């Protein structure tokens, strides 16, 4: 049976599928990802880092972010991020400002409650889709947090810029090495897992004791 180890990006993309997806871009990752999930082959595996750190943290951040926009809509003097700076990244504050600007420039203020309601609804919808994915579509959860090899993460950090990706990939390597079957790592991340990058990793002396998965890059 094919064993497909899913990166966080796959779950996030699944959660964002709109009921009408326009394929205006050549690569609509949401549609591609939804089709991939729908036509599931073999089993889906996810690591605990994705579930307990990445997804959990993303959902908290989304909620705080939505609340910040609502506060700004309710009180235009409110400074976005002033009460929740620790839970948000600086980029999130800029994103919230962008949404607020969109609201203030484009929308009829008489429907501000409708806009806030939509913010809440979309957040809750996305969270419910993620929850469904984790509860019903995942076959195996692997590599508890305390089993992630810190030295391996440190080596990967020399090659992969993103700390979260290093932890996920460290989990993938540990898992793949422990298995006698073929493991396919499925991701949307073209930046960190492009062909050259992977070739470079495979040649790294300190990673020779690890078995690499096959890669499937969606989109």
């Amino acid at each position, binding site marked *: 049976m094919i064993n497909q180890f899913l990166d966080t990006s796959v779950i996030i993309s699944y959660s964002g599928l709109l009921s009408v997806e326009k394929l205006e871009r050549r690569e609509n990752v949401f549609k591609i990802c939804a089709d991939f999930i729908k036509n599931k082959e073999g089993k889906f595996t996810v690591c605990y880092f994705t579930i307990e750190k990445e997804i959990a*943290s*993303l959902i908290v951040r989304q*909620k705080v*972010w939505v609340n910040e926009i609502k506060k700004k809509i309710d*009180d235009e003097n409110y400074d976005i991020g002033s009460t929740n700076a620790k839970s948000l990244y600086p980029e999130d504050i800029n994103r919230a400002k962008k949404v607020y600007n969109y609201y203030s420039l484009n929308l009829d203020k008489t429907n501000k*409650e409708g806009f806030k309601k*939509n913010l809440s*609804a979309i957040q809750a919808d996305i969270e419910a889709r993620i929850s*469904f994915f984790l509860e019903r579509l995942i076959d195996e959860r692997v590599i508890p947090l305390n089993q992630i090899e810190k030295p391996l993460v440190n080596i990967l950090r020399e090659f992969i810029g993103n700390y979260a990706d290093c*932890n996920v990939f460290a989990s993938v390597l540990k898992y793949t090495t422990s298995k006698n079957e073929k493991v396919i790592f499925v991701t949307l991340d073209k930046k960190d897992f492009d062909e050259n990058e992977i070739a470079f990793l495979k040649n790294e002396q300190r990673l020779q004791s690890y078995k690499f998965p096959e890669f499937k890059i969606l989109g």
Partner: protein
Amino acid sequence: MNKKTPQQIKQDILDKLEQGPLSIQQISQEVGSNWLTISKFLEELKNERKVREMLLRENARLFRLVREDTYLDIPIKKEYKIIGFYLFNKIGEIWHEKTGKVPKNTEVLKTAVEVLEKTGLNREIPTVWYLYGKIPVLKYSPEPEYKTEISSIKVKSLNLKEFNEQILKAVEVFLVSSKTHDVRVRQYELYNNQLYQLKERIIYLLINQDISKEELKNLSSSLYAYCPSKEDASEILRITQEFVSVIYKLSLIKNIEEFRKDILETFIGLWKMIATYMFYDSLTQYEKFNDRERTRDFYFSESLYNRISSAEELVSNLLSLYLNNTSELGEPKALSNIPEAKMLRDIFFEMGMEGTYKDDKSIS
């Protein structure tokens, strides 16, 4: 100078606390007795349920009078209490004359609010939003006969004839129906209070109708839209959005009817939290209470804390119910194509793709 008896000291303490909460040190200075003496008598007054101790930030201890006749011990001057009781009594009389019935609590309270606000007396007897709408902070009980001699009270600018006329007019406003629900809704409409109208619709749905998942989702996210969001309401907003999230998840379960009782119980807990905040927020609109931090510390710290903790626990229990029933989940629909959906979805995707977890220190 004669030494004060314990009874006199205790009475002095109670008199000083009439003006509002005080620390032992402040009472000691006002009463003219030492710290230890005041502390000892305060303990006795606490045991007699005449004063209440409040533990504030940085462990500061303050004491306030227990006022059986107002909500959360909010102080009202004696002469205005008498006016308030007269008002309750008069409403009862007129109501009875017009309908032959004794008015219900809701009818008296809503009518009293109308009178207090129209006459400006709400500056002394504040009217506030609470669980079932706007009420005076002075408690009403149908039991005692409020036979008060209002003529003996000297209150500037109170013209008794005009006051009585105002009561008559206010009774007419609320003589709309014999159903308490209709009276409540009438008040929410008068004030165009969408949050309270929404609360009524959610309870109606959860009690009287087959639960439509789409309607429940729609109403719960509307509740979020109207939920208070000032800086001191951050916890309330957070828990409300948490409730919305759980409702959306529960909606994936095929037979949501099984959870009707639990959803209702959770919503009521959530509503108590929101309504207690609304009480606090509306009270701070009055000059005497407009120092928000002080008002919160003096009268709401305990009640808000309890309501928030309880709501949080109920929402968490509801989430557990969902997690225990994930084998019953139906596949979720794709996100609805509302105008903002694509923009928000793309931003969430961006947030997710940039690496959602940056804390290097957490794995060791």
